[in-house]
């Protein structure tokens, strides 16, 4: 069972003086449980990526309580936490580092100590799910931006984690692949946290959304409510999703 609990979380990037780096999060509270699909939205620089990086333990210098499946996020627990939590980077080039797609997708299962047959089954399934089986033996450098994104997602799916964190997953995807990703995410069980500027994507994949602003969560509730609240979105540097704008125009 996947569960995230955050209580009074404060975080700032380390620097010599406090003035140089203002607080990213102040007394932040958040809770998420199994099978929820949560969108994380906010203007540039509010800390959407930082929020995800804190959850996976890339950043550990925080104050307050941050627990994944009842385990505090600290160096000692990282192996246990990461074995159940997959993270898709914003920049696919940071995610993919092996020679071919197959090798990269197999990297996680190999580190989990699975047998060769199990690794092969996991890789095949992940590639099929993301629709890139035909690219299995392609060198990574020959992939397009969208293909790299799908391969990045496959690398995480192959690990069989029950919590999925995604940073701008729809960036670089064409409409067809974007639709495919929406379908994959909607079919995928487990807890999902999706940080994105693509509000239409958030609308299509998340039932719940949190809005980050000035170091706090200023909204936490149903996605539809926040994404139709034009005033609130504009106050926080966002705009209505395009699909709603067209709907307004038509009506």
């Amino acid at each position, binding site marked *: 069972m996947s569960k995230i609990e955050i209580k009074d979380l404060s975080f700032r990037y380390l620097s010599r003086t406090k003035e140089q780096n203002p607080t990213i999060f102040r007394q932040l509270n958040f809770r998420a449980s199994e099978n929820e699909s949560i969108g994380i939205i906010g203007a540039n620089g509010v800390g959407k990526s930082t929020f995800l990086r804190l959850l996976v333990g890339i950043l550990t210098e925080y104050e307050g309580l941050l627990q994944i499946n009842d385990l505090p996020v600290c160096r000692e627990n990282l192996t246990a936490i990461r074995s159940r939590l997959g993270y898709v980077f914003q920049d696919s080039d940071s995610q993919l*580092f092996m020679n071919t797609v197959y090798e990269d997708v197999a990297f996680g299962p190999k*580190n989990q100590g699975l047998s060769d047959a199990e690794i092969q089954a996991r890789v095949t399934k992940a590639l099929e799910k993301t629709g890139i089986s035909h690219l299995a033996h392609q*060198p990574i450098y020959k992939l397009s931006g969208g293909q790299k994104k799908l391969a990045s997602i496959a690398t995480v799916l192959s690990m069989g984690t029950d919590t999925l964190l995604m940073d701008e997953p729809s960036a670089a995807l064409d409409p067809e692949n974007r639709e495919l990703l929406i379908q994959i995410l909607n079919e995928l069980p487990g807890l999902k946290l999706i940080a994105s500027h693509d509000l239409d994507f958030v609308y299509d994949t998340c039932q719940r959304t949190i809005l980050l602003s000035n170091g706090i969560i200023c909204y936490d509730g149903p996605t539809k409510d926040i994404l139709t609240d034009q005033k609130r979105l504009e106050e926080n540097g966002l705009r209505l999703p395009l699909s709603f704008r067209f709907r307004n125009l038509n009506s």
Partner: protein
Amino acid sequence: MNKQTQAIHNIHEADELAQRDSFLISLHPLSKLLVTIVYIMTVMSFHKYDWNGLMTMSLYLIIIMITGELSLLGALRRLKIVLMAVFFLGIANPFFDREIAYSIGAYQIRFGMISMLTLFFKAAFAVFASYILIKTTSIEDICYALQKLHVPSILITEIMLIHRYLIMMLRETQRMFQAYQLRAPGQKGIHYSAWGSFVGQLLLRSMDRAQRIHDGMLLRGFQGTFYPNIRTYRVGFSILYAALWCIAIITLRLVPLFTIIGRIVIH
């Protein structure tokens, strides 16, 4: 194609060449590594004046280059800088070792010249043998062979990470160079006033990217051991290949083949 693009292309080309479907590539990497080590050690064991004996060792390179479908010109082009550096290793020998070895008509060949050539060919043969190994074996396969030889895993991981860091750094260089050129049209290279910030930025950016990649690896369970991708190899052929080549190399070392052929031709 600029130099950075060419360098990236060369690395990727080497990786792709090592993935081809050919006899040499289908062999177990340990057998190829073993033959290469035996070959290099044998080449190094020749006496500094044993020019004839050393030349017989070129047979291995010729045969492997043909069976591996490798281009000699391509190899020379890639290795020209290394070969030039190697040439300068023994350039002083003719001045110090002036004793006459042979006289051909009015020409006198000194021992220094022979030792210079021997030194050059020893190094060149070793470089070519390594080049052939790299061209016919992917970095993963080489690391797998090293793992089989019980080389410490930290060293193997280092090799694999350096290979990846090299590509990543070249890509960053390429990106920065392209960005520079697009905003400095008509300028050749990078102006010296920008060298400092260019190198500094390159270092910071490549370190930042390396950090992100490392984070990505850790998130996928990396705990310090890189598991090379193991393919299916022709084990029987590999044992035969290693055994036959080791015997052939040692035989070539013991029997001065070219001298014997020379004598037969003269008689």
